[in-house]
């Protein structure tokens, strides 16, 4: 904290504080609270109507399935790539490290288009072969998992890489020199020290995966009760003038994502102190 003489004059301090609070209130807090209010305008009716609508329940299960698959893929891939990027030297490492962040700046619609071009059964580079083998990717669950894994790809890596770099590899080398093999060293030494970074990465990936919309819309075909996820239900219910169900589903999604960020913000300071 800055000492007393470095504090701003009271009017400046109050002005900045007011500006920040009012801006965030008008842009985020008030709109979000309105959706909560609309959802519970008739008590629990909207929520229970939504939860008994087969379109919605199917979409929620599908969302869970797709999100969990994507989280699992990105967890394994993310931890592994992080170890490679921090602990090993190889040609093209800097390029790989920069390209890893690419999914964060690519529009979800472009992600969807890219996957359709590669995996569609008629003209896709891989899609035609997969189709011949009887595997459907586009307009089916595998494509939606790919799209979700794509957009959330950097999140685990961005959390784990700085921690791995920070802890150094002295303990790992000691463990190896005492005769532990690579798997034992990873399980007993590396994993415990990056545990929290992995947890944040997974929670952020989960939040992103539950909420993915554009990329999934392009690759899924948006077929009701088949490839329609929760975010797609929100859009189609809202446009179909079933606003109560749209608000209720949006509320469920928003609750899940807010729980995710609260979990991260509760865990984070404990770890750093």
């Amino acid at each position: 904290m800055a000492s007393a003489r470095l504090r701003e004059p009271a009017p400046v301090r109050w002005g900045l504080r007011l500006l920040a609070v009012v801006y965030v209130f008008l842009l985020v807090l008030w709109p979000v609270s309105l959706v909560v209010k609309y959802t519970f305008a008739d008590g629990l009716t909207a929520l229970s109507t939504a939860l008994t609508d087969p379109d919605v329940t199917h979409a929620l299960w599908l969302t869970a399935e797709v999100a969990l698959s994507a989280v699992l893929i990105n967890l394994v891939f993310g931890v592994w790539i992080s170890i490679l990027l921090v602990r090993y030297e190889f040609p093209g490492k800097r390029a790989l490290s920069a390209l890893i962040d690419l999914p964060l700046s690519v529009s979800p619609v472009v992600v969807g288009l890219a996957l359709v071009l590669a995996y569609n059964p008629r003209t896709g580079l891989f899609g035609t072969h997969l189709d011949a083998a009887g595997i459907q990717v586009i307009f089916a669950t595998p494509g939606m998992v790919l799209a979700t894994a794509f957009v959330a790809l950097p999140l685990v890596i961005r959390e784990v890489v700085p921690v791995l770099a920070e802890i150094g590899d002295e303990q790992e080398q000691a463990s190896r020199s005492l005769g532990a093999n690579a798997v034992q060293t990873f399980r007993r030494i590396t994993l415990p020290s990056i545990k929290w970074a992995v947890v944040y990465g997974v929670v952020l990936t989960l939040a992103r995966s539950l909420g993915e919309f554009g990329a999934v819309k392009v690759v899924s075909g948006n077929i009701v009760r088949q490839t329609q996820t929760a975010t797609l239900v929100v859009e189609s219910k809202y446009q179909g003038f079933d606003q109560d169900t749209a608000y209720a589903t949006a509320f469920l999604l928003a609750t899940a994502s807010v729980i995710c960020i609260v979990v991260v913000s509760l865990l984070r300071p404990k770890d750093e102190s």
Partner: protein
Amino acid sequence: MTTSTVPARTARRRRAGGTGSLSGPTGLGLGVAVLWFSLLVLIPLGLVVTTAFSDGFAGFWDTITSPQTLSAVELTVVQSVLVTLLNVVMGTVIAWVLVRDRFPGKAVLDVVIDIPFALPTIVAGLVLLALYGPQSPIGVNVANTRSSVFLALAFVTLPFIVRTVQPVLEELEADVEEAAASLGAGRLTTFRRIILPSLVPSIAAGAALSFARGISEYGSLVLLSGNLPNRTEVVSVRVLTYIENGDPAAAAAAATLMLVVALAVIVALDVIQRRVARRG
């Protein structure tokens, strides 16, 4: 990408800096990781670029200079620049308040900043529509106007500059400011001459992220902007329209334009981060 050269390097590199060598299984693991990354990200994105030029350069040029695409590009770029400028000011103010000020409810403000990150984009659009749509309780209706694009982008990009500036501000040493103050500098001069220069790289990094997100935004605009051609249609929506009309070459052309911008931002970020690392 470079898997074939990996075995040749086995057991050659063991630097003092703690970087290990790529032994057989690790080299194989690198190959698998790079293969997965290529199948998922690099090859599909490469196909976007090749498809964009499937009708030659003329086809690509015709698509991106068609009036409807140009108008979408103009809207997207202008609104992203405006929102980024707003974020430069508001993001720095919010980061400043979060680090230097103390008041009840600050912890809540800190968590609320992250809501736009976590909220699904379609829900973000719905949420903004609740306060700034046709049924607005305060009588402000921006739905289907160009302002709605600005509003949606301001919402989804809110955390970027706050979260890049905040840690830098926390690390700043008070003694430099004290020295400036003891030499007679006012608070404004201290801020302008001492604090601001050390924040500039993080503000620039946040601004690049915010601009890139603005250019590529789709989900939050779907319900809010109405996607009116030539008026409120952004580039992402244009790409989707081309896809739905069964014109993948045109979709890929517009998408390539966006990819070039995304790459430029990544390179800019890399340069900024390297410069910061050198200084630190």
